[in-house]
């Protein structure tokens, strides 16, 4: 078993900034990601991001990824990157079980930063296992990483930012978005994203959902229906849309199973879609030396994930005994950044969730 000073699990925006702060402070870092490429969600985001200059707003997600990975470049000798490596198990003494291809090995970290992000939720409806029913992330992977259209005519399910943005990305790839259905009575994501697809002709139908997928070997059509106040389908309102793809974008759930194996205290927070780790203000979990940040902690944005990654990274470096320049000042400023980002209506849910966790906002 190999010993490491600091291990960062997950190479999305949160993991990349955590690794950067650790390296800048002087620590050695082992960065692990199960994908071939680093970047997490950023590898698929072709649109410009919100936020302020501090979080690289107005840059496209794929370009922010380049900025973050370039920043790691100068620490080459202290940084070990293990891609296509999945952490499959955790033990209490900060030992990780890893799998790369057919190799299995263990690593022990003095400090561990978790930034494993979230997984997509599924939606129950008749025939939701038919080929052609895909998670939004899968559609993005196919289009933006492999350059392949998921189909020719798509029904989007869910009007959060992901559903809205992936609809736009589908149109950019030359795919027709036949419509977007949303169970709630209003659009969940940013209205600017909604207006952007609506003016290009995509109908957004609130209080509407998918009843079933139709098709033999793969999706040939989708049946949608209106929902009542209790979110139940109303008989007699069924309509059939001719589509070959149903794209499901109904939310994310944090990937906390590994943390739980390690004995980290978690709490169910509805606002964050499931169990999330209980944290102190340093983004340290209930297990000393184990930190968590990003979508794993609360389903939010890359902007806040990057800030959280920095806070976790600086704190982990400090607890390793490194002198971080202006640490107190920087951490205060970073907390301030988070507060700013979460200050408006889109931050309501996050603030509510954090309150339940006992985190001051």
């Amino acid at each position: 078993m190999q010993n490491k000073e600091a291990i960062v699990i997950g190479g999305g925006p949160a993991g990349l900034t955590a690794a950067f702060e650790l390296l800048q402070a002087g620590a050695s870092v082992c960065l692990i990601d199960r994908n071939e490429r680093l970047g997490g969600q950023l590898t698929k985001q072709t649109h410009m991001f919100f936020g302020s200059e501090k979080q690289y707003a107005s840059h496209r997600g794929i370009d922010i990824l380049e900025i973050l990975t370039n920043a790691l470049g100068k620490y080459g000798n202290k940084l070990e990157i293990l891609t296509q490596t999945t952490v499959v198990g955790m033990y209490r003494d900060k030992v990780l079980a890893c799998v790369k291809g057919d190799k299995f090995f263990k690593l022990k970290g003095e400090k561990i930063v978790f930034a494993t992000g979230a997984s997509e939720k599924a939606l129950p409806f008749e025939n939701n296992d038919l080929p052609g029913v895909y998670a939004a992330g899968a559609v993005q992977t196919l289009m933006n990483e492999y350059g392949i259209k998921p189909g020719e005519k798509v029904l989007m399910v869910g009007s959060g930012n992901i559903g809205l943005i992936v609809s736009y990305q589908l149109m950019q790839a030359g795919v027709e978005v036949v419509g977007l259905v949303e169970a709630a009575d209003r659009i969940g994501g940013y209205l600017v994203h909604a207006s952007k697809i609506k003016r290009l002709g995509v109908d957004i139908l609130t209080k509407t959902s998918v009843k079933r997928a139709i098709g033999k070997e793969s999706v040939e059509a989708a049946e949608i229906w209106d929902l009542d106040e209790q979110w139940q389908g109303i008989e007699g309102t069924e309509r059939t849309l001719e589509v070959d793809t149903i794209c499901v974008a109904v939310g994310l759930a944090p990937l906390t199973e590994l943390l739980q194996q390690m004995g980290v205290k978690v709490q169910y927070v509805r606002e964050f879609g499931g169990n999330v780790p209980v944290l102190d203000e340093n983004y340290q979990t209930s297990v000393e030396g184990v930190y968590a940040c990003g979508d794993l902690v609360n389903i939010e944005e890359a902007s806040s994930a990057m800030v959280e990654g920095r806070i976790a990274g600086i704190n982990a470096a400090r607890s390793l005994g490194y002198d971080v320049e202006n640490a107190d000042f920087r951490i205060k400023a970073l907390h301030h950044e988070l507060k700013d980002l979460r200050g408006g209506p889109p931050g309501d849910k996050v603030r509510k969730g954090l309150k339940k966790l006992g985190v001051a906002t």
Partner: protein
Amino acid sequence: MRIKEHPILELAEKPPIPFYFNGKKLYGIEGDTIASALHANGVKKLSESIHLKRPRGFYCAIGNCASCNMVVDGEPNVRTCITPLKEGMRVENQQGKGHIHAK
């Protein structure tokens, strides 16, 4: 079903990679996974569910859900959405838990 033109992404032409799907010769391109190459060829059904024999395609495309399991070069339960395509690979639909095609 490959995207020919994209406003943001640069899609460079890549060399083709021949492979076999249920004995039929198809082409993917460099950088493809098995599932992406099949999808580009219009193949959406990758496996059949264990009990009810319902058709299954990929779902998550990141190796999480096992919905894309296929038999590759005789080996069952290969997660094709994250397995890079290689020249000459023999890929077959998996039926049930993955006993090898009688063929």
